[in-house]
């Protein structure tokens, strides 16, 4: 949570990650992914090929001067920049994140803009920050006129969706998920922990973290993007299985409906692939309960079993015509 300059250290980091299927008939390769995420012509898109294909855009900044969302209605004006970035996993799943850090207190007047520009991703409150109320306010969502992380993330997604590389012929329809998160500063001497993961309606998820002071904000972003990616995969696969009406309709058509999952989703499960080592173990609590990977494996097994069952008559046919 370190920030440069003569500013109090950040005590809270807040973010939102939006996850969707890339609206393109084919998955993008590394080159195309880098082209898509080239949000700044002069900055490198980071492309990793191990352990999976993962492209990460440069960071963008959006200036804000508005009230912070607060759960108790406290009116706190804040000025600064919100950082945002986009990530593409295996050329298939697109994510946009927006986040900001806040120190516990800030000056009572607005400073020259250059002061904020050299503190990317930092938003300074006027006076004292109501830390708890702000964290809850962010998780609840912004009211009109309050700092809107969702709007910034959505604006970035919209910009990417207009890219000429995308043909808008996605292999299947799917919903977006929104993951809002806050990271409070852990008491001295305590390690990072995942305090809560909440599955709400309409594709909304919220995450509460507690992180040591030295954890950079981007490490928290990376963790939350990883959580959001895998939650989206689960959400999407469950929805596909529901829609396929496995068991209710005849076999071949259900299998046909599940085909896109096999082609485009099943190979994407890889928790912690791009999470900083110190935060990777935060996955453990989700693996214990509810067991993300356990659920994924069950779903995958179910699909594979169906495919196998459907293959039996074909096999039979093939054998009998010999």
């Amino acid at each position, binding site marked *: 949570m370190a920030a440069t300059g003569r500013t109090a250290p950040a005590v809270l980091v807040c973010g939102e990650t939006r996850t969707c299927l890339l609206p393109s008939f084919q998955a993008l390769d590394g080159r195309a992914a880098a082209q898509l995420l080239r949000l700044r012509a*002069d900055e490198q898109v980071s492309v990793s*090929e191990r352990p999976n294909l993962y492209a990460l855009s440069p960071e963008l900044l959006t*200036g804000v001067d508005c009230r912070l969302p607060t759960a108790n209605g406290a009116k706190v004006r804040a*000025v600064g920049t919100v950082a945002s970035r986009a990530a593409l996993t295996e050329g298939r799943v697109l994510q946009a994140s927006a986040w900001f850090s806040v120190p516990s207190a800030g000056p009572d007047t*607005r400073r*020259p803009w250059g002061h904020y520009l*050299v503190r990317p991703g930092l938003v300074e409150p006027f006076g004292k920050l109501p830390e708890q109320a702000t964290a809850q306010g962010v998780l609840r969502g912004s009211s009109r006129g309050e700092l809107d992380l969702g709007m910034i993330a959505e604006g970035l997604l919209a910009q990417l969706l207009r890219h000429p590389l995308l043909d808008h012929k996605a292999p299947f329809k799917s919903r977006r998920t929104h993951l809002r998160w806050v990271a409070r500063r852990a008491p001295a001497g305590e390690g990072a922990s995942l305090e809560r993961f909440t599955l709400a309606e309409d594709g909304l998820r919220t995450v509460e973290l507690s992180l040591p002071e030295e954890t950079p904000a981007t490490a928290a972003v990376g963790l939350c993007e990883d959580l959001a990616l895998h939650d989206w995969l689960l959400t999407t696969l469950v929805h596909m299985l529901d829609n396929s009406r496995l068991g209710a309709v005849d076999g071949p058509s259900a299998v046909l409906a599940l085909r896109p999952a096999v082609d485009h989703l099943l190979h994407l499960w890889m928790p912690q692939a791009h999470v900083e080592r110190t935060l990777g173990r935060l996955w453990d609590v989700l693996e214990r309960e509810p067991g993300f990977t356990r659920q994924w494996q069950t779903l995958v097994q179910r699909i594979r079993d169906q495919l196998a069952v459907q293959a039996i008559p074909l096999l039979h046919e093939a054998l009998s015509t010999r």
Partner: protein
Amino acid sequence: MTEAVFQETTAQPRTQSVPLSHLSLELGHLYMEDFEAGPERLREHFAEVRIWVDAARAAAARRTGGRRPRISTCFLIDDYFTRFSTPAELVPVVLAEAERAGLVIDYLARESGCAVADKIEPAESVMHRLVESPPPGSYGSRPPVSETGWLPNGQRTPTSRSAMGEVTGWQPPQETAARNHSVFMDVELWSEKDGQRLWSCPFLAAVWQLARLGLLRHLGAPVLAPRPWNGGDFPHDWDLLPPLLQLNASAAPFSAYRTCTLMPNRFLAVEDAVRLILDQVDVDSGALRQVAERSAREGAAVPAAVAQRATYVFYEEPTDAVLHGET
């Protein structure tokens, strides 16, 4: 934390540094119409500039605590908005007139190099780095600068939108950093014609300032690297002239901690717009850090705000009467 065993080069960015002088002194920023007026105009220009050059050198020396400052001089020719003559014809005249005034031009630049230089587009890169200073009430709606091509220093007069909507009277625009009263400014960064983007003079001038301040990078590598001149003839086509040519082999580095620009006072509005732009550019953080650290080590720490590193002398333009000395 230990270093990871496995590394991927495409996944790790880094920023190369550039050599830096104390001061980049611009001896002129001339447009084709200035050349059209003939060598007398240039002569008059350099004679005037010469006076201020000495002052700028003295000011730089004061800042370095008496040690001899590294100062490089440069001269910018507009070949972007209008094309006139050829380098072969024009550059020797410029050099001769400068020399007559006792001035040495270390680096010669073409303005179009700020738009496209060696197949990269510095202006577009800077455009991607604009982060608008948010007027109060900005809560995250997409900054429209990349759509509209206009960059203000505050809140514009709101326009009425909806049919049957509320009818409101005129409301004034508001400068965000106003002290009691506003000086509102709205700068056009580019225009579009036949699908072609034409960058505005202030925007290219802002790119030029960033280049002189050593703050431009492309994928971590320096932009507008000076090319040495072999002492031969200059080409007959502007496009064949390198975007930045080093004329003086023993010159101090092109980029510098600070810049000083000497120009006729009609450029005042343009350079005010340049400051407005520089104040809203999110400069490459690696380059910014390198310059800050090295200038501090040399006891010549730069101001945090990039626009504050640029100073100007606006002199009275020679009138035709002065030029021709008659009629």
